[in-house]
Structures are given as C-alpha cells and as structure tokens.
C-alpha cells in the first residue's frame, strides 16, 4: 500500500519554484516547426523515427527475400546484403527505438505526467530534435554516397569496418555512419539532460518520486543510463573515425590486405568491443526500461487494478539499470577472455534475471483477478509479456559461456534478440500509441483496424522468429546471405526459411494498415473526450484535449495520491485521478 491516504491541499508544501513564463511562439514557424513545446517536439521526434524506421523495415523485407529465396534476386549481392543488415540493425536500435522511446514518449509524457508545464529548458530541447534530424539525414545520405552505406554489421567491429573488403569501409559509408552516430549522441544528450532534470527538479506540488507513474520511472532511468552509456560509443566512434581518416591505429593491428602490409599497427580491436558493448548492453535496457514502465501503466489501467508491488517495480527498474553496466562482456565470450572474467560476466548476467523476473511476476499478479478489458492497448501489453518472457528464457541460455560458444553468431542469437529487444518493445510502442493517441489528437484510433493490426503482428512475429530459433540450433550462421557450399546443412530448413520470409512480408504489410489508421482516425476517428480509458495519471486530467502549450491552463495540478487508484472500495468511480483529494472534497482546498 503506497500512501493512498489523501491529504488536503494545505498539507502539501507550497510551490518551491515560481512559475516561469514560457516562450510564446509568434508565428506559424515557431508554433509548429521550430517549436519549443515538448509535445510538438515529441511528435517531430516520433515522425522522424517512424520514417527512418520504415526504411529499416523495407531492408528487413529485402534480407528476408534473399534468405528465403536465395539466388532469385540478382540485385541483392552479398555486399548489398551486408549493407542491409547493418543499416537495418543500426536504424532499428538507435534511430527508431531509442529516439522513439526517449525523444518521442519521453518528451510527450514526462512533463504531462509529473505535472510540469514543459521541459526545464525548452530551447535546448528543441535543438535536440534538430540535431537528431541532422543525424538521420547524414545516415540516410550514406545510401546515396559513392560505395553505398557501410556493411560492417551494426556492431561495426574493426578492423573489418574500415577496410576495403567491407562495403563502405574505404568509401563514404563508414564515415557517414560514425558522424551520424556522433551527432545522434550530441542531440540525445541535450534532450536527455532535459528529461532527467525535469523529473528530478521539475515536478508539481504533491508529486513525490514514489507517486510517479512507472512510465516516468522507466523513461527516467533509461535516460540516465543513456547519458552514461553513450559516452563509450561516442569515444569509440571518434577513435574509429580517426583510424579511418587520419590513419591512427587505435583499433587496428598490423594487417596484410591483398598481400600488402597496411600502415596500421599496434592497435586493439578488443578495445573497440569493450567500448561498444559498454554502451551496447545498457542500450538493450535503454529500450527495455521505458517499455517496462509503459506496459505497467497499460496493464494497470486496462485491468482496472493497481499495479502489484509498485515499490518493488521501481526498485527493480533502478537495479536493472545499475546492473546492466557490469554485464557487457557477455557479448564477447567468443572474443577471447580470461575464464574468470567469463565467470564474472556470466554471473552478473544471470543475476539480472532476478529483478526482471520480479517484474514479470508483478505484471501477472496485476492481471490476476483483474477486470481485464481486452482493448487494443491491453492486447499489445499482453503480447509484450509473452514475448518478453520468451526472449528472456533464451537469454538465460546465451548468458552461459558454454552454451553461448556454439550458439554465438547463429540465427538462434538473431531470434533471441529480436524477441527480447525487437518484437517486445515494438509491441509496447504500438500499445502505447493506441493508448495515448486519443490524448494527442482528441480522437480514438479505429478499433477493428487496431485488432487486425494486433493479431497479424503478434501471430506474424511468432511465425517469423519462433522457427528462427530452430534454424539457428541446426547451425545456420548469422549474417550469411546464403549458405554456398554448406547448403546441404540447410536443406531441412529451406522451407522454414521461405515460410519465415513470407510471414515477414505479411507482418510488414500489416504495418501499412496501422499507418493508414493513424492518418484516417485523425479525421474520422471517434471523438475521444478527455479521458477515454478512465485513467488516473495526470496527462488525462488536462483542462483541454489535446493539451495546450503549457499543459495546465492557469494552475498546475496538485497531486494527492499515486497513479494506481483503480477500483478503490467506496470511491464514487472505479478510478481516482492523482489530482483528486477524495475523500476530501476539492472544495475543502483551503489556501
């Protein structure tokens, strides 16, 4: 029971930070384009992320076409295939998921959910988006650069990443990729500082940290992690850029290429791997923690029950965030490592399973005997739990050194990480869009299209990635456009591969229904009203829908309770908004 005792306004400390006047846009340009309103910035971030995400989706079709029907498509050369996987992986992880969860949902939801008028420094927040856009453009430019985009794999491992044998290695591809990542990190830092400070220092009266919705906890923790993890990637990118452009040898050992000794020597490729994964593993949780937070709120709202074990959920998020900084070398078991280190990293990896399992139990216990409404957001939330458990279990396999060594670099790994960090967070993103679209636009998304979208996506995702585990166990390696002379090995899985590819195309086209729904409902969706899901958190209590610039009208809300007062016995309705002093009447608000 987290303080459900309501208090009267006079018991709540007075405002510590005076109202600061917001910047008032004077023209169409400053209202909709160079806007400093976090909600507009959120939509700009999301739109850009989805747009570049569609590119990654199309690339995944091309890859699947090649894998399902090798040799049929002459334009998919092995080089092109490498370029596709690299761009697909990098876009999905960084430019879609990270940007959408933090830049998109973070910007929209944090100020509203903590009762702030905007982010603390709106101008810096705006710059964050424009630099992100620049990063995306630089990335997209590499498709048109001579030599095409880099084909180094999304991990960009040197030395191959900057050698002539890899597509883009000795042309523009890798340079543009590194520059784009550096820009992304700079842009993200500007936004991330804002999200973190808004949560720590910008909450409204009565909003204690332990009353924040779990969505805010998830996004906040992920932001702090990103601020500490991206530096490693930044440094790695700078050093690799110098290796490529200036001829330094940070990561480059002495090499012979085509019988010629290169001028590199003495660098350490393993150093890059450490830097990359010191970023890369936390990155997994940077996209997972916001998903954890959001899904908790979806489940609680749509099952009309308080979240089970709120405090435990908060601490689990924080502990997962902290632990994920000491597990990175589980991605390097096959790179060569002292056995004691392998032991250490395997142990820490398995320990993370504990807080993660706590979260899963708590979601299930929240559902237990709840009044479950199978709305579209709820369907996606349930799909998330199933998929996440699935991916988490294969993670336990791969976390053990002896099991990982034979499975590493097979399709089993591809199946694992798609389950856990591809499909699962995407499910939450869809659920969250169906959930908050009414607040953003004032209209509901069309229900039947939503259900269709859900079932095709959910069943389809399993059709794609479930058989892929088996394909990997049989021994099909990752990052191979086709099996060549080893094709006999894949004979039993050829049909499966074709099946997976067809499923991937179907799932892809179902997303077009979703996009259509987004546009169609903008005009023709049902009027939503201010609070269609009858939810408790502050964003549903704004004076107008969609919320105006500054969010709250004349006065910021005062918070009396946590965000999970659903089905409270004796309450007039089955939910009590956070800013409702029940059982006191709002009228008792004495000055």
């Amino acid at each position, binding site marked *: 029971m987290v303080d459900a005792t309501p208090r009267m306004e006079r018991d*709540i*400390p007075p*405002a*510590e*930070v*005076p109202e*600061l*006047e917001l*910047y008032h846009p004077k023209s169409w340009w400053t209202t909709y384009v160079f806007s*400093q309103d976090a909600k507009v910035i959120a939509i700009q971030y999301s739109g850009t992320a989805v747009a570049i995400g569609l590119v990654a989706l199309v690339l995944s079709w091309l890859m699947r076409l090649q894998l399902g029907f090798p040799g049929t498509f002459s334009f998919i050369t092995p080089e092109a295939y490498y370029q596709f996987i690299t761009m697909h992986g990098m876009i999905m992880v960084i430019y879609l998921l990270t940007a959408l969860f933090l830049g998109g949902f973070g910007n929209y939801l944090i100020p509203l959910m903590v009762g702030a008028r905007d982010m*603390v*420094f*709106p*101008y*810096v927040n705006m710059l964050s988006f424009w630099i992100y856009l620049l990063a995306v453009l630089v990335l997209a430019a590499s498709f048109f650069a001579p030599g095409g985009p880099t084909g180094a794999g999304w991990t960009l491992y040197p030395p191959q990443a900057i050698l002539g044998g890899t597509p883009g290695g000795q042309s523009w591809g890798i340079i543009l990729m590194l520059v784009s990542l550096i820009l992304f990190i700079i842009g993200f*830092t500007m936004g991330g*500082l*804002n999200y*973190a*400070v808004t949560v*720590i*220092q*910008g*909450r*409204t*009266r*009565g*909003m*204690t*940290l*332990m*009353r924040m919705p779990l969505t805010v906890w998830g996004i906040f923790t992920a932001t*702090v992690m990103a*601020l*500490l993890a*991206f*530096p*490693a990637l*930044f*440094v*790695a990118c*700078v*050093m690799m850029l*110098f290796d490529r452009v*200036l*001829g*330094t*040898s*940070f990561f480059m050992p002495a090499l012979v290429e085509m019988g010629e000794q290169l*001028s590199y*020597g*003495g*660098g*350490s490729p393993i*150093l890059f791997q450490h*830097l990359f994964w*010191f970023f890369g593993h936390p990155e997994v949780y940077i996209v997972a923690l916001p998903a954890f937070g959001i899904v908790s709120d979806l489940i609680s709202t749509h099952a009309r029950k308080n979240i089970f074990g709120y405090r435990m959920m908060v601490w689990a998020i924080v502990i997962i965030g902290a632990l994920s900084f000491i597990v990175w070398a589980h991605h390097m078991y096959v790179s060569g490592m002292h056995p004691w280190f392998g032991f250490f990293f395997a142990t820490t990896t398995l320990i993370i399973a504990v807080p993660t399992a706590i979260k899963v139990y708590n979601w299930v216990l929240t559902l237990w005997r709840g009044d479950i409404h199978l709305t579209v957001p709820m369907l996606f939330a349930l799909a998330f739990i199933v998929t996440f458990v699935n991916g988490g279990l294969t993670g336990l396999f791969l976390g053990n050194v002896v099991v990982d060594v034979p499975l590493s670099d097979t399709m089993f790994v591809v199946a694992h990480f798609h389950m856990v960090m591809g499909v699962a967070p995407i499910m939450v993103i869809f659920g969250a869009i169906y959930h908050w679209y009414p607040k953003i636009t004032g209209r509901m998304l069309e229900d039947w299209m939503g259900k269709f979208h859900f079932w095709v996506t959910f069943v389809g995702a399993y059709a794609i990635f479930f058989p892929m585990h088996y394909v990997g166990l049989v021994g099909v390696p990752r990052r191979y456009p086709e099996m060549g002379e080893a094709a006999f090995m894949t004979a039993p899985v050829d049909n499966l591969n074709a099946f997976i590819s067809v499923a991937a195309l179907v799932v892809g086209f179902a997303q077009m229904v979703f996009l259509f729904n987004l546009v169609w409902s903008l005009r023709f969706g049902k009027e939503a009203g201010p609070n269609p899901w009858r939810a408790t958190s502050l964003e549903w209590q704004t004076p107008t829908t969609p919320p105006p610039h500054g969010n709250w009208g004349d006065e910021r809300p005062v*918070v009396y309770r946590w965000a999970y007062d659903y089905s409270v016995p004796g309450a007039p309705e089955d939910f009590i908004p956070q800013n409702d002093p029940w059982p006191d009447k709002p009228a008792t608000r004495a000055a």
Partner: protein
Amino acid sequence: MGETTLNGFGAKPARPSGIRGVAADWASDQRAFKSASWGKAMMWIFLLSDTFIFSCFLLAYMTARSSTTVPWPNASEVFALHMFGADIPLILIAIMTFVLISSSGTMAMAVNFAYRKNKGATVALLLATAALGATFVGMQAFEWTKLITEGVRPWGNPWGAPQFGATFFMITGFHGTHVSFGVLFLLIVARKVWRGEYDRGDRGFFTSRPGDYEHVETMGLYWHFVDLVWVFIFAFFYLW
C-alpha cells in the same frame, strides 16, 4: 552549497540535516535537490556524463600504452624544453598546469563576488579567468607545434609507439576544446554581468529562461571540472 540562489529557487529552511535530510529531500515532492536550480542540476548531470567520456578516453590510452609491444616515448624527454642552456623536463606543462589551476582560483572568486552582486569585480575576475584559459590554450598550441615540428603525428613518431601521438593529440585536443568553449562562455557570461542582464533577469539565449547571477556559479562548475580533468590528464600522460 546551502543558500546560493537569488530568485526564489533557494532551499526552504527547517529541513532535517544529514542523511535524514537527504532521505527527506528525495521523498519530497517537486525537487530532490532542494538548493539546486534547474540549470545547476543540469550542469552536474552533464558533467557526470562528460566524466564518462574522459574516462573512456583515458582508459583507451592506458590500454594502448600497456599493451604496446614497442617502447613508449619517454615523457620527461619528449616534453622537455631547451631553456637557459639546459633541457628542463616538463617545464612547459608545469607552467600550463599552474596557469589552469590559478584560473580556478579566479573563477571561485568571481562566483563569490557575483553573489554579492559586485559587478565590477565579477567581470574583472571572469575576464582574468578567460585570459588564463586562453593562455593555457595558447601554450598548448605551442606544445603541439613543437611536437609536430619534431615529427610527431597521429599515425607515428620518431621515438616509439604510434599510439603516443594518436592518444596525445586526441585527448589533449578534446580537453583543449573544452577549455576553448569555456573561454567563450566565460566571455559571454562576463558580458551579461557587465550589461546587468542578471539584475533584470533577461532571457538567456540558450535556455530561454530568465537569467540570474547563479549562472556564474554554473559556469564555475564547468570550469573547475575542466580543470580537474586536466589534473588527471597531466598525471596519466606526463607523469606516468
């Protein structure tokens, strides 16, 4: 730093002290750091993030240095200057370090005078800090030039491991960039103090929030940080 703010952002009195106070602050509404304004909190978090960047750079340098199979150039010879008929090891770098540390002193005094709203002294001290910072960058440019004329390049040098030049230029360059940006912002802050923008609470360009004298302190946080980082670079690069 207790009551440091001027515009109503300050801490409210009568909070429990010590560890209980910390717990009470984190359990409270609105703000977890009761005496820190938004700008100051943001600077602290940024510096934490930046610490990770410099740590990664320095760790990369240590890895390169401890795993190289060829000799590492001898710092006290490479960084010696020929003065008064003798090779004096590390003399330039000693002066640079002294200059930068002194600039932290003038910065601290500037913060003090800013809170007393002594405009003249604040401006003078800020400009002194900026001048010392610029001197540091100038001497660094001299050092780079000297090394380059002696044949040190990012990809090689006459005395040993090529990673010497690579890490040297990268790390001191990154730090020097920090100092240069610091000088630029010191000048901007000095100008704002001089024109009385903090007395009137004019909107800052970068933040679009009303400014006040606390900006001097926030600027100071950055400056001391850059200074502290230099101590580590100095220790690991020149003394090791």
